Structures are given as structure tokens and as C-alpha cells.
């Protein structure tokens, strides 16, 4: 036998206690939806996991009404310290049920269990712990003394990090004193519904968090609901644009975290072995379903061949397969639709003349799979160098000088993240100063922390999530009436962020 054919080490699904049907979570309890229910499937096997209720306009209305009631009667009147207690309780329950949540996430999303176990779920708990600490310290959040909450927040999250995106949205909203109506993505509603059970366990007052499942129509019902004060969205730039249009002219506040086409810049003095790991982690983490993925590798021409050789060697050791196996590195693509998009863009890449390479790997017959793929000979005009693939597909481009690297990195309508690999600290700082991206990683990639703000430039969206900056999206200065469209202090905060970033140009 070959040692490297590690014996199967699957995480057991016995820990799950799933229902066959899930309703909507409104006012603290599960209720029937009035839209057509849909099935959520495991993308690794295409087997149905559970039937999920779909919320129509009336259901959304009920959810918003419940959130409004909870806001007026309970949550906005509660002391920050007490809100913090609930958040701490939620964080601890997430930790207690970590294994169950990780298994459910991998089952529903297709991501490897080692990622849901070691990254997603621990970060979810960390996010709640972090914002629990803020709940009674809002005076120091940057909006002045006694800042006010906004009201009801409508939140729409994507399928790539279902539970983590939920935490990014709910934790700061609740800490700041808002109530929530949240819609998980239709392909990955499972962990949000388990989270609803956790809220029941935590005895969170009814209506503070409402979870409505459904497709795009449910989402637009939330966005367009007149009693929603704040819309927070993470997802594609296209949908984000629609949301921005829909709320234009209303007094709703909005934050959008959209797509990206991040440059991962490798200089010739980079710590090469760690850079290779960083490139792999940058684009193949979570099957490349990461808005901040390092999908454009910009490598200094003098080390291009060496980097590509080493990269290919490393990719050959990646294990694609059962997301629940603890040794799996690459899981399943989340949906048939996403697989189609990855295939289409990859075929276009090949047709445009880029050179395509994937390691030999056995693709399971059922489910949605795409092998880790790299394209060399890519030029900036190729679509695979411009469009967000949102899959395990890396485009390799070259540069000659730092100036060219900066120009190429910034030459994209997006601006979410970037990576720099160099042993020279002064170069890292100088280049980071000139990159127009919300997050820049130096000698690492795809690292997240609740204390660090995250968000984009240009078509990657507006607003920041995480850290103190993430609270600004859910607060307004004391005494600001709800009808005032733009609160001066929050503008000041926003423009302060912009100024800092823009002055870096």
C-alpha cells in the first residue's frame, strides 16, 4: 500500500440531529412559510438533506414586524451589558456545539471538514465573543457618546461561508442594539437554522433575530421592506448593484461586501516555500469560493518558472474528495450553477490562449467537483484575469518591477484584498501603500480576525465589517432622528476611512 493513500477518516454525521423539514424562524419560533418549500442538498452527493420553507412577502413582513416589536419593546431598551450577556452566551453555545456545526456546514456547503472545524466555526465563536465585549462600550466605537442603534437590520448572506457570514452580520448588529431579519443563501440554509436553535437555547428574546429562508425574491422583499432601517449584503457585485439601486432615495443605510479579483504579488526575494503555501491557501481555500481569494497571481518574471514548477508539485499533493473526510483539502463546488460558471470561464480562458493545468485527481461521479486549476500565459486582457471565477482557478501573470506589479494589481474594477510576498519589510510597506484594496496581507493570505476591519474599494462594495469599524455600520450618533437620511458622524467615519485609504495612493 501507499502511505499517502491515507485510510478514510470521515467525521461522523451521527452527531447531527436534523429535522426533515425546517420552517422559518420568526419571533423566536419555527413557523411554516407560505412560499414553495425547497430542498437543500449536499453538493458532494446531491442527496437531499432537508426540506426548507420559503418565505414570501407576507412572511418577510411578519419577520420585520417581529423584529420591530422586539426592537421597540426589548432590545433597544436593554443595557449594553445585558445585550453582551446574550452574545457571550451565544458564543459559548457555538463553541459547545462546534463539532455539530462544522459537520452540518461541510455537509450542506461542500467545504472540507478541516476548514469548517478549524476556520469557520472557531471564527464564528470569536466574532460573537468579540462583539459581546463591545456591547457595553459603544461610547468608544467612534460615533460619540451614547450612540443610537438604527432599528431593524435586513441582512442577506452568501453560501460560501454560511455560518461565518451570519456571525459577521448578526454579532455587530445585536451588540449595537439592532434587531435582525436575516436570509441565508438558498443552497446553504442549514447552519443558520441550527443557529436559530442555539438562539432558542440562549433564550434570546423573541424577534431579536429572525431567519427567513428562500431565494432572491425573499431577499428583495427584505431589501424593499419599508420598515427595514439598514440593509447589509454580502454577495455578488451584480446583486449588490441592484440593492444599491433599490434603496436609493430611501433613508435606509447600506453596507455591501461584494466580489473581488485579488492580486497575490510574489517578489523575487519572497520566502519561496511559504509563498507557495500562501498561493495555494489564497486560491484553493474553500474551493476558491472566497470573495477575497488571491485569484490573480502576479509573480516576478525572473522567478516565474520556478514558482510555477513548485506550485504544480504542491498542487499534486492536494486531496480532493469527501468533504467530511478529515484529510480532504478540496471539497465539492457548492452548486451545479456555480460549477457551470467555473467551467464556462475556464473554457473561455483556454479559448483565449491561456495554458491550463490541473493535477491528476479522481473526480467523484456524484456531486459537483472541479479540480484545482492553474492558468499560465495569462495576460491582463483575458477574461480569467478580469472576471471573478469564484472557484479553484488561478491565473498566473508576470511583472518586472514593483511599479508594474502595483499597476497590474490595481487594474481591476474590484478592490477587496491583495497579498504581498517579500522578505523586505520596506518594500512590503511601500507596495501596500499604493494598492487600492481594503485588506492587504503580507507574507500570508486569507487570515481573518474579528478585530480587523474587512471590506472593499470600488466594485467590491462599501462599508467595513469587523473591528470597531464594523460597529459604525450599525450605529448613529445620539439624538439622530430615524428620518434623517445621512448621519453626519457616520459620514465622518466613512470619509475618515476613505481618506486614510485614499491618501495611501
Amino acid at each position, binding site marked *: *500500500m*501507499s*502511505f*499517502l*493513500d*491515507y*485510510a*478514510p*477518516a470521515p467525521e461522523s454525521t451521527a452527531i447531527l440531529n436534523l429535522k426533515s423539514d425546517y420552517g422559518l424562524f420568526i419571533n423566536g419560533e419555527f413557523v411554516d412559510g407560505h412560499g414553495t418549500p425547497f430542498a437543500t442538498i449536499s453538493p458532494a452527493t446531491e442527496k437531499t438533506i432537508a426540506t426548507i420553507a420559503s418565505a414570501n412577502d407576507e412572511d418577510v413582513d411578519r419577520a420585520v414586524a417581529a423584529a420591530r416589536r422586539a426592537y421597540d419593546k426589548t432590545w433597544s431598551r436593554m443595557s449594553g451589558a445585558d445585550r453582551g450577556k446574550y452574545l457571550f452566551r451565544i458564543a459559548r453555545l457555538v463553541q459547545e456545539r462546534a463539532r455539530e456545526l462544522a459537520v452540518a456546514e461541510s455537509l450542506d456547503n461542500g467545504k472540507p471538514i*478541516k476548514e469548517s472545524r*478549524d476556520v469557520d466555526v472557531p471564527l464564528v465563536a470569536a466574532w460573537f465573543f468579540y462583539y459581546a465585549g463591545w456591547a457595553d462600550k459603544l461610547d468608544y466605537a467612534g460615533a460619540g457618546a451614547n450612540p443610537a442603534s438604527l432599528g431593524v437590520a435586513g441582512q442577506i448572506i452568501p453560501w460560501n461561508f454560511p455560518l461565518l457570514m451570519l456571525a459577521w452580520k448578526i454579532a455587530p448588529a445585536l451588540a449595537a442594539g439592532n434587531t435582525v431579519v436575516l436570509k441565508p443563501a438558498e443552497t446553504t440554509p442549514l447552519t443558520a437554522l441550527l443557529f436559530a436553535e442555539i438562539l432558542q437555547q440562549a433564550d434570546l428574546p423573541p424577534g431579536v433575530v429572525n431567519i427567513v429562508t428562500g431565494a432572491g425574491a425573499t431577499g428583495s422583499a427584505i431589501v424593499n421592506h419599508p420598515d427595514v432601517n439598514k440593509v447589509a449584503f454580502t454577495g455578488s457585485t451584480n446583486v449588490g448593484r441592484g440593492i444599491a439601486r433599490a434603496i436609493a432615495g430611501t433613508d435606509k443605510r447600506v453596507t455591501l461586501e461584494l466580489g473581488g479579483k485579488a492580486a497575490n504579488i510574489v517578489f523575487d*526575494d*519572497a*520566502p*519561496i*516555500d*511559504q509563498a507557495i*503555501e*500562501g498561493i495555494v491557501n489564497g486560491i484553493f481555500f474553500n474551493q476558491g469560493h472566497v470573495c477575497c481569494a488571491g485569484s490573480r497571481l502576479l509573480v516576478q518574471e525572473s522567478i516565474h518558472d520556478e514558482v510555477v514548477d513548485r506550485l504544480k508539485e504542491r498542487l499534486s*499533493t492536494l486531496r480532493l474528495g469527501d468533504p467530511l473526510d*478529515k*484529510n480532504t483539502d478540496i471539497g465539492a463546488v457548492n452548486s451545479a450553477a456555480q460549477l457551470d460558471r467555473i467551467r464556462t470561464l475556464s473554457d473561455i480562458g483556454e479559448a483565449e490562449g491561456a495554458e491550463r493545468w490541473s493535477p491528476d485527481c479522481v473526480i467523484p461521479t456524484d456531486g459537483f467537483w472541479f479540480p484545482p486549476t492553474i492558468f499560465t500565459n495569462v495576460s491582463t486582457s483575458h477574461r480569467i484575469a478580469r472576471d471573478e471565477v469564484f472557484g479553484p482557478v488561478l491565473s498566473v501573470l508576470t511583472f518586472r518591477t514593483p511599479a508594474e506589479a502595483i499597476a497590474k494589481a490595481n487594474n481591476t474594477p474590484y478592490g477587496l484584498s491583495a497579498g504581498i510576498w517579500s*522578505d523586505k519589510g520596506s518594500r512590503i510597506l511601500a507596495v501596500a501603500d499604493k494598492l487600492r484594496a481594503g485588506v492587504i496581507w503580507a*507574507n*500570508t493570505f486569507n487570515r481573518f480576525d474579528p478585530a480587523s476591519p474587512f471590506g472593499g474599494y470600488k466594485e467590491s462594495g462599501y462599508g467595513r465589517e469587523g473591528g470597531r469599524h464594523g460597529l459604525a455600520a450599525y450605529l448613529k450618533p445620539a439624538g439622530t432622528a430615524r428620518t434623517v437620511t445621512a448621519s453626519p458622524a457616520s459620514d465622518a467615519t466613512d470619509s475618515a476611512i476613505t481618506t486614510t485609504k485614499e491618501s495611501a495612493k
Partner: protein
Amino acid sequence: MTETQKALVPRPTALELFDGPVTDASLRRYLEGIPGVDAVGLEQRAANLGSRSIKTTSKKWALDKIIELIDLTTLEGADTPGKVRSLVAKAITPDASDSSTPRVAAVCVYGDMVPYAVEALGVHHAKGTDSGINVAAVATAFPSGRASLAIKLSDTADAVDAGADEIDMVIDRGAFLSGRYGQVYDEIVAVKEACRRSDGSYAHLKVILETGELNTYDNVRRASWLAILAGGDFIKTSTGKVAPAATLPVTLSMLEVVRDWHRLTGEKIGVKPAGGIRTSKDAIKYLVTVAETVGEEWLQPHLFRFGASSLLNDVLLQRQKMTTGHYSGADYVTID
């Protein structure tokens, strides 16, 4: 060993690489031109490799493999012929209750204990071949390396004359840290020459970097290149007398050098983490790291060893557990 007989001094591929004589200046240029190591990234990669889940058949295979790769070691001031005989007996029969248990690769002792080890091994002495158990001796004023070159060379020659098949030498860390790379290099070349037997064959040379004293991963990487360039057959992490001894990130970094050397020259250099590896669980992490970094081919006594003493009994307990389905206890394996 057949391969070492071909080895010349200094390593011919090194001379080709330098395209001329190896001097202090040329070594410095070369070693300082090696890409740096990012400590955070290296440790993260090692931690990821350490999280592989090795179960059932893979675990069974791994446990046997670990035993085959052990240099069973006693390096105490209090070592006596009796202690060495006991160690050798353990090496020959690791688990008296299970004759299917493989034997360890070698016993590792101080130079003056080599005759007793050779005598105790008798027919089981492999004498550098793959069948049986080899005798490894630490030399060159182990563990500090603080002695004159002449002493180090005669220390080495003594052990080889007494029948040692493998020499575990220490580098002069003082010289390395003060930037005298040429001196470290020359010393390794000279010790390699002292490993030559009267019949022209060489004892296998393991070069101990003592990574705990080198302190940075950049230093470990440079010292690894230096040891390989000078003709070491193996690079070894530690003496076991300095903390920290072997760690997974340090070993990973050395394996990366070995992989790069193979890519460059086609030559295969061995790696030996030593000191601090006490449990099967830890040892399995090293097997995973070797297999996923340089390839599964390295998992053979020629190319990978564990320097350990208490590891063996933990592996035996795990092995018994896999056979019988229940844990026994420390009294069900023999001490040496």
C-alpha cells in the same frame, strides 16, 4: 553502504555548483542568497501537516514504519557496557510478546561504547547493510563540539575503527554563528574523510546542526545547505542535550532543503529529527510531513531516522492496542 562508497570528498556536485573552489566568501554568497523562511508561514504549514488524521490501516503501517526508522539511543554519562547490552537486546527484540514486531534501524551510543554494541549485536549487526541493526556513534566532541579539529577527527576515526557504521557529528555552532562558514564546511569535509575505513568505504555521516542553538529558521536552512554541500549523508536536528530539540517546523524546513537539493542534483539526503519525539502521535506527524514534502520514498532507514529512546515503547503500546483492541500499560513493554 553501496552509495557512500561512491561519495568523494568534498561532494563533487557542490564543486560543480560553485564552479570552482569552495571558499569562505563563495559559501557566504551562496548561503546568503538562499530565499528566507517566513517563520509564521512555516509553522502554520507544519501545524496543517500535523492535523492529518491517520487511522486504521494507515496507522498500523505507520507504527511499524516508525519502529524501522528508529535510532534507539542512549547517550548518558552513566552509560556502561551493561546498559548498552540491554539497549541492544531491546533493539533486537522490541516486543517480546509479538515476534512480528520489526527491528529498529540502529542503536546510537557514545564512541567508547561502540565495541560493546558491536559485540552485543553479533549476527544482527548490519554493518551498513539494510538487513539487521547498524551501530551509530556520536563523535566530534559531542554534544558541544568544543574541541580541536585533531581531537574531533581522532574521536571519529576511533569510533569507525571500533566498528561504527554511522557517525553522528556535531557542527561547530560557534563558528557558524560568527559567520565562519568555511570553517564549518572544512570541518565536515575532514570528518567525512575520517569516516573512511581502511577498505576505502565510508561510515555514513549524519551532521547534527543543533537547531536549538541556531535559533532562527534562516540559520537552520543555511546550516542544512552547508552540511549537504560539505558531504553529509544525513542532516540531523539536535543532540538531544539542548532544548528545543527536534520540532516539526524545523524538520519541515530541513526536508524542504533536502527536496530542493534533490531537485537540483538528483542526490538524496537523509533527515533525522532527534530529541523530544516521545509519542506515536507525534512521530506519525513526522511521517506525514516527510511523505508530503519529499515523497514517500524517503520513508526508509537510508533516508529518514528518528533519534529517540522513549518513543519505541509508546509505539509498541499503540501497536499492541491495534492488535488486541485494548490498551495495556507500561509494564507490558520492556524497558531497556
